[in-house]
């Protein structure tokens, strides 16, 4: 086995060579996934909290739907966004297909149900503990929302990380709506698919190791932040 066939050696050379192409791919991967998680969080955290606090007809159906959508196959999400954004589609006029924006949209659709469904669970659990005290203080559901979201912040960080994991790992959606165009929409996962199909297995695996390292770093950072503030605030 020559050094070039060893994925760990390849990964190390990739990182040490500071290859411009690789660098661009890594940055785009992070940008797309983090941006998707940010947008999904802004939408899904309040929705999840609202779903925990309000009881209305159809609530259970909505919860089941969100839980089911956690398992939405990325290719299906990609296909739907593709149809929406393609020239003939309803949003075709914006010319977003095969751009990073399209990739963000597709990943938001994948991440949103995860964050919303898990937030609903966390907030509902906290609400059952806080409800009487908060109502005794005179809060209605709307005013409880920010309190509960803030007090559940440590578990919600884990929820958001779960969403980030989904976004950074998926390949089906970004492949379809991004197209894996070199220098424009190529990200880590689509590169891995490409290199695998070309037979560059060591390079593909090397890219995989780089991706895994990055995701681990981000998770470690989040864990550190959460643990320190947890120790400080109980």
């Amino acid at each position: 086995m020559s050094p070039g066939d060893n994925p760990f050696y390849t990964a190390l050379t990739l990182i040490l060579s500071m290859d411009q192409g690789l660098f661009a791919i890594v940055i785009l991967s992070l940008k797309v996934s983090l941006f998707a998680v940010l947008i999904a969080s802004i939408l899904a955290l309040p929705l999840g909290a609202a779903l925990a606090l309000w009881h209305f007809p159809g609530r259970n159906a909505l919860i089941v739907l969100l839980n089911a959508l956690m398992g939405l196959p990325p290719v299906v999400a990609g296909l739907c966004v593709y149809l929406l954004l393609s020239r003939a589609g309803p949003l075709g006029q914006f010319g977003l297909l095969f751009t990073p924006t399209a990739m963000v949209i597709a990943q938001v659709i994948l991440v949103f149900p995860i964050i919303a469904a898990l937030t609903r669970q966390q907030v509902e659990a906290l609400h059952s503990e806080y409800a009487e005290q908060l109502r005794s203080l005179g809060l209605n559901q709307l005013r409880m929302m920010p309190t509960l979201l803030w007090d559940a912040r440590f578990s919600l960080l884990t929820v958001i990380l779960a969403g980030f994991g989904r976004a950074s790992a998926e390949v089906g959606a970004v492949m379809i709506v991004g197209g894996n165009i070199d220098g424009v929409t190529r990200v880590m996962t689509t590169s891995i698919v490409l290199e695998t199909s070309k037979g560059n297995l060591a390079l593909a695996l090397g890219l995989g190791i780089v991706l895994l390292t990055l995701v681990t770093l981000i998770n470690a950072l989040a864990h550190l932040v959460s643990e320190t503030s947890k120790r400080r605030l109980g």
Partner: protein
Amino acid sequence: MSTPLGSPAMSPTSESPTSESPAAESPAVEPSSTMASPIMPIATSSVPTLCIDQVSFEHRGNRLLAPTTLSLSGCQRTLIMGPNGAGKSLLMRLAHGLLRPSSGQVVWEGQTPVQAMVFQRPVLLRRSALDNLTYALAVRQVPRHQRKALALQALEKFGLAALAKRPARVLSGGEQQRLTLARAWLLNPQVLFLDEPTSALDPAAIKAVEDAVLEFHRSGTRIVMTTHDLHQARRLADNVVFMHNGALLEHSPAEAFFSSPTSSEAAAFVRGELVW
């Protein structure tokens, strides 16, 4: 007003925790101007009468509270007693408005008073002790620049000043319950509900809570409290509501209740027998 209000009686360490008649019961009532909560003085006599009129409560077809009529007026300490499952907490939640009666109504004569409630298990937010208090002030729309000073005063009063920055949820059980009392104090309630506030505490912490209850009462707050501790009821009660099996059996002045209860269940309870 800026001086710490914590009287020696507030300190849980000074006295034998089992003493039957705590010193706080006897001393001359201090001037109400220094005892009142700093937000605004309470007019002692104006606590609206609470009328619980034929109130019943059912849950999933089970009748948990038979139609109950009860009237509480003045600035009195009412102790609701009875064995577990008698409906004490239920009646209190209905009175406070946390639960809606299945039938009958809860009416305040005149304006609905400012109320606060202290629960059996302290419910504290995942923030510092100080932030728990400023949060309550924010909810009651006290201007932002006043909150911290008021909260610090309340912490001082309840002997928690040194713990201001500590996370509320790592405090001991007794400290947590004192913190919920400090929070209730800041709300300046005319009526304070307490649901077995001492059932999970050690004698020193129980003493601190009872002293705080008396302090609320001195400042003109009506006390409505549940307990199944006879000794505690004897120490605190002006009048006693006795409940059993989801029904109110008796409401009488404390002395009459303890010396000559009318129902056989209450008599057995006062004798310390097990009531079913």
